[in-house]
């Protein structure tokens, strides 16, 4: 009876083959994160910031170089390595590139200390909010430089998440990316209560979602006898096993993934957390977590559940509609810019899901492109938000943005451009993204859904427009916010976002080519 367990004892166990060149970017990122922790341990306080910033930027660039070197002669079909637990294929490489580029922008925002002395992060997280010491730390110049290694850990987790070829690896990666994020959400320098509230909310709900994810894995294991995506796919093809396990497991797995992507009815955390977290972290989450979550979602749906798509598609239709409706309609009444972008992100998650459901090459490349485009736009948008400030920190209430174009025409123009990109106006990346995603959905027979999506994208355009109207056509508030002159880091991040948004709108061919370079590696 116990034979299956004991059979492997004795005899040599075959050690897994590791293709180090393929996973080098991940190794660099995670290795540097460990080094970052050691630096925190040994460097004196005043040296930490410059060294950590240098290390983090260098790491991302080095990982990018390693990725570039590998992409050049990567096998077209992709490979799996580490006993088939990690797949390095065209989509994974594209997502890695996207994640690294977005993380570079996010790190620039995180590292910025020009708009506020000491940056957006708390000087000493241990101080209770509201005390005398807390008021002193607001004006001090230190920060918890642990943010940098934490960012790298999260980034490493995200990269693994998009390449995970079995559910258990995916779960570990999910936790690796989530835990640092929970912590980073609570590190705001100002409005610390709301920041810590956001962290706890995100943590509790994230743990809840992880439990669903894990339960789903257990059920799928019960169904297929394996956690490998390819094995699950093989098991779904014509067996007489219990479909109850399969679909219950699939549903719960989806809940975990959709939560991370802030989709549909699992979005509830998004507005609160986006609002409470330090703005650079919000930018990091909004851009990178979305990419990672949808990257994993794509892989799961394409590799493991392609053959059952007729059964689950209807349900995901409903989810996508709910997500678009919630994002577009509730976004209309928001009075806080960060919450508004959060609802916009929920609506965009719905659009992304529309593309994800089209299990075709166009669906894959379209969704990948959309992720790239959306990530840069939203990153730059949060960069802009971090610049509009009043005495108590960022002025995120919409009324404070009234008449901003008169005070700072350039900033207002940049933000307008980004909002237009989010609304999907042509010559911005948002238009091309929506176009490719919706066409893919259409050619896979989802016409009604595309109609609904178009209607909701028209509705969503309204709340972007509200901000534009406010910035251009309203009288400035008498004691309105000032616009900080951004330092080199923030300027670089915003410029990066804006340039990519424009470039992907005018010349998307290069990115589209790369996004369509190939499908998922299927061998296990």
């Amino acid at each position, binding site marked *: 009876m116990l034979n299956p367990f004991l059979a*492997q004892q*004795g005899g040599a166990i075959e*050690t897994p083959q590791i293709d180090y060149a393929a996973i080098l970017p991940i190794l660099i990122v995670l290795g540097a994160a460990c080094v970052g*922790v050691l630096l*925190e341990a*040994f460097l004196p306080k005043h040296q930490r910031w410059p060294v950590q910033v240098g290390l983090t930027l260098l790491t991302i660039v080095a990982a990018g170089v390693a990725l570039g070197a590998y992409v050049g002669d990567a096998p077209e079909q992709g490979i799996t390595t580490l006993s088939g637990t990690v797949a390095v294929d065209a989509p994974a490489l594209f997502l890695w590139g996207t994640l690294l580029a977005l993380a570079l922008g996010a790190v620039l925002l995180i590292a910025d200390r020009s708009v506020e002395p000491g940056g957006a992060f708390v000087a000493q997280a241990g101080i*209770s909010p509201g005390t005398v010491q807390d008021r002193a730390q607001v004006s001090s110049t230190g920060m918890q430089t642990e943010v940098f290694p934490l960012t790298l850990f999260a980034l490493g987790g995200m990269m693994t998440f998009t390449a995970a070829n079995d559910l258990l690896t995916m779960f570990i990666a999910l936790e690796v990316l989530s835990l640092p994020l929970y912590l980073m959400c609570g590190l705001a320098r100002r409005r610390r209560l709301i920041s810590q509230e956001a962290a706890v909310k995100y943590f509790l709900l994230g743990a809840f979602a992880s439990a669903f994810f894990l339960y789903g894995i257990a059920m799928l294991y019960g169904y297929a006898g394996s956690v490998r995506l390819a094995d699950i796919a093989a098991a779904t093809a014509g067996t007489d096993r219990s479909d109850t396990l399969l679909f219950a497991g699939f549903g719960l797995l989806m809940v975990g993934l959709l939560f991370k992507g802030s989709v549909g009815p699992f979005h509830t955390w998004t507005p609160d957390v986006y609002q409470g977290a330090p703005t650079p972290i919000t930018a990091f989450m909004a851009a990178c977590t979305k990419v990672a979550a949808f990257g994993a979602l794509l892989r799961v749906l394409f590799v493991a559940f392609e053959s059952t798509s007729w059964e689950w598609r209807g349900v995901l239709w409903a989810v996508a509609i709910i997500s678009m409706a919630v994002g577009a309609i509730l976004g209309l009444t928001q009075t806080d810019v960060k919450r508004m972008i959060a609802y916009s992100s929920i609506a965009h998650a719905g659009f992304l899901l529309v593309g994800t459901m089209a299990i075709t090459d166009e669906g894959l490349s379209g969704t990948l492109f959309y992720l790239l485009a959306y990530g840069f736009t939203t990153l730059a948008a949060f960069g802009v938000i971090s610049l509009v400030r009043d005495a108590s920190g960022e002025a995120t209430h919409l009324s404070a943005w009234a008449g901003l174009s008169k005070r700072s025409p350039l900033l207002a123009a940049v933000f307008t451009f980004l909002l237009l990109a989010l609304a999907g106006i042509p010559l911005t990346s948002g238009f091309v993204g929506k176009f490719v995603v919706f066409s893919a959905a259409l050619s896979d027979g989802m016409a009604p859904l595309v109609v609904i999506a178009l209607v909701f994208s028209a509705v969503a355009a309204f709340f972007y427009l509200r901000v534009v109207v406010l910035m251009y056509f309203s009288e400035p508030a008498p004691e309105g916010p000032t616009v900080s002159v951004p330092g080199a880091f923030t300027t670089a991040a915003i410029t990066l976002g804006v340039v990519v948004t424009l470039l992907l709108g005018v010349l998307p061919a290069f990115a589209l080519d790369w996004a369509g370079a190939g499908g998922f590696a299927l061998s296990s």
Partner: protein
Amino acid sequence: MLLSQATGGAALAQEGAGPGLDMYLPLVILFALALGFALFSVLLGPLVGPSRFNKAKLSAYECGIEPSPQPVVGGGRMPVAYYVTAMLFILFDIEMVFLFPYAVSADALGLWGVAAITLFIATFFIADIYVWRRGGLDWN
């Protein structure tokens, strides 16, 4: 067949044909034993033991931590050091969880296994070093 699918797991158990489900029998037995032992100990204690109370015994946690005071604005601090120690304990526990199976099959894993486990321990120590340097181990 359709009917049996509709009732899902129940049908599966009836047929007894779930692939390798009988594999779980030892686990079920173990679970029953554990439950029995727990119930036995909990019920036996009050029945046969003497019942003398003091302050320490009546507190919520009998392991040294002060129950935190009611939160007032900005006050109500938690004794963080206690949790640091607790977390370190759990971490080493988890390290053990991985070391044990390695030790059992060290032969079979060969040199590759040594390298892997060394890397694991080294990575693990990075966190310890951080805690140590930041004063997490200074108990006062």
